[in-house]
């Protein structure tokens, strides 16, 4: 049974159609990816899943529950976490405060133990977080802010993680660390949907992937199938 099911959604920005008849599924515990050019609608897809845009037609169900009309905070409470593109952090708060905000859900439920458990796990992956814990987030470098944004999403112990360009602005070494952390959580059962320009890296990692072209899904398959696909090789992997 599919965990997230997106059925025939259309999304409009004013009079421009950003997504047209998009359908795809992500199974429980799966790692799925969306690749496509800039402007193809990848970010819109993620925003629509977490309720920042609403489809004008079509349905989105998560764990059997319709979410296409729900506001973002309700969607987060269902266990979906979203890491937006371009390092959205609270600049005037410290690194720790940013992380604690990510764990808002746990605080409300009185799950303090969960918070420290998550913190410890993140410190193990990204020692930088521990070193700069009291620093204002706005004073971190761009790449560090990106790590923080991802970590903040992980603080809510999501069952489903949406990642928009997680590798952007990261050094090669940091990219592998971020992907290691994501894979680690995935192995423990977290479902992941990732949007990335680093198509090769993504396709090697995911179980299933979709290619988005001009707001439509034009190809889908397992990671390996798409890696072998001539069209994908040419357009997204930069091979000729």
């Amino acid at each position: 049974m599919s965990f997230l099911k997106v059925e025939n959604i259309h999304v409009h920005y004013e009079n421009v159609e950003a997504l047209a008849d998009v359908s795809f599924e992500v199974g429980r515990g799966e790692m799925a990816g969306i690749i496509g050019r800039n402007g193809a609608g990848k970010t819109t897809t993620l925003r629509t899943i977490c309720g920042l845009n609403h489809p004008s037609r079509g349905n989105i169900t998560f764990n059997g529950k319709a979410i296409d009309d729900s506001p973002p905070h309700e969607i987060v409470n269902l266990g979906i976490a979203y890491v937006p593109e371009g390092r959205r952090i609270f600049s005037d708060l410290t690194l720790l405060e940013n992380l604690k905000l990510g764990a808002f859900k746990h605080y409300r439920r009185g799950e303090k133990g969960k918070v420290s458990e998550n913190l410890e796990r993140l410190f193990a992956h990204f020692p930088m977080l521990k070193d700069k814990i009291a620093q204002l987030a706005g004073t971190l470098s761009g790449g560090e802010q990106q790590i923080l944004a991802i970590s903040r999403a992980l603080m809510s112990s999501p069952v489903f993680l949406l990642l928009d360009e997680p590798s952007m602005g990261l050094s090669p070494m940091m990219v592998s660390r971020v992907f290691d952390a994501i894979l680690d959580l995935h192995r423990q059962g977290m479902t992941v949907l990732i949007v990335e320009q680093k198509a090769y890296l993504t396709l090697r990692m995911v179980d299933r992937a979709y290619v988005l072209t001009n707001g439509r899904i034009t190809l889908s398959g397992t990671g390996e199938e798409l890696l072998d696909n001539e069209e994908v090789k040419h357009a997204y992997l930069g091979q000729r």
Partner: protein
Amino acid sequence: MAIYIIVVSGLNVVTGHAGQVSLGHAGLVAIGAYTSAILTVNYGVSFWVALPVAALFTAVFGVLLGIPSLRVGGPYLALITIAFNFLIDKIILAWPGMTGAAAGKLGIRLPSIGNYHFSHAAYYGLIIGMALLTILFCKNIVTSRWGRAFNALRNDEILAKTSGINIYYAKLVAFVISAFLAGIGGSLWSHLHSYISPEAFRFDRSILLLLMLLVGGQRNILGPLVGAVILTALPEFLHAIEEYRLIIYGIALVVCVIFMPEGLTGMIRGRLKIVPEIPVVPKGEQKPGFSLEETTDGFLKVLNVSKYFEGVCAVDSVDIEVTPGSVHALIGPNGAGKTTMVNLITGVERISGGEIRFKKDRIDRLNPYQITKKGIARTFQNVRVFKDMTVLDNVLVGGHCRIDSGVLEAALRLPKARKSEEQAIHKAIGFLGILGLGDKASELVTNLPHAHQHSVEVARALMSDPELLFLDEPVAGLNPEEISRMEVIIKDIKKTGIAIFLIEHYVDFVMNISDIVTVFDFGKKIAEGAPGQVQNDPRVIEAYLGVEHA
């Protein structure tokens, strides 16, 4: 009513476009009104002399009102402008000999030319004519490089500075224009009513002026007209409930801010879905003309530069030398101080020690706009664009420091201003074409995907005719195809003689295009050399590349 159009049009320039909220505009109108009244009544000066004198005198006060805006913004500036309004009121009351204090000033006459004495109706016709001229005057200004500069500084002051705009000067210009028009309004007002008293220029009047702007629609050339008409006509209809007038204004303000932030004109424009005018694209391929100066020795030299943030060392005694026409890359782990280095060179941050020289001049104490004017341009890592402006306007802002038309030339649309504007558009469209955004010129910049907004930044930076261009992660978020295109673009830029200094994590890209690579770790330079050499340096592999890329 027509006088309001003049005053509110001025308010639109300073508050709507430049984003400097003034709640003291009635004080400026008072200065214009009393200057004109005192000159004509006490000294027998002709109206035709008093009007421009009053306008210019008020413009001087515009400078005074504008000075605080150089240091503070937002609510603090608004408070200062309120204080200014009260201060003017007190001065009028404290000077009975000239102003008549609370009793008011009587005997202000309608103007005359020779033997012709203006009737009330004729004078009103004159005012309407002036209002129409004002609208034209403001339209010319806001569509010129000055209007763009105002919009730019409202959106993002740091970005405006590094795009080559002297924002201090631009803010004062906005205040002066606005005060000049308030002065004209005041002068016309005093002769229309033949009697003035301080009550007409108190704080509630300032609020009314702002309300007219908000109801009519900020940043819309017809907004002041619509707002002035509605808010002067409204009380006529509401005569029966005169005492509730302020309540109704209050409600109107709240409704306006919440439901139609762009005012009536904005709402109508939204309903009609009016697409912004697409500028005429000149035919034929336009090769941008880069200005290329011959530099013999000493291009960019960073000497022993350090930067501390509250005791934390971000950049530690670094030396870097960029040679003219080269592509120089700076790589290193996240948090190594790369962006800080670029911020120091472009004047966004001040160095703590050492010196930075560009073509022999020290630039480490200059303002960002001065550095841009010297020929250094940059883009930002976390994409910075002027959000509510079109792609084309974003790019044109970059050309601000290379167009030398003054405000008056722009306001009067003199041929020189028009020609330089046309050339700038021509050039901007050329750059957009090269960057693959030729068809997006009239789109709102935020409608573009993140990565393409960075390309808009590149075009904006090129508009300032740089000799040295800083690119902070130019290919972040681009796909392989777009990355190879950026490679070609950077090589093309290099061919025109512009040196490029870039920060990037995409290793293959860096190695393909760079002549020299500098590697940072913990604020220190740990390696420097040709790409191949750096790539095999064990320290670089350990700190940055990881085993996979070795």
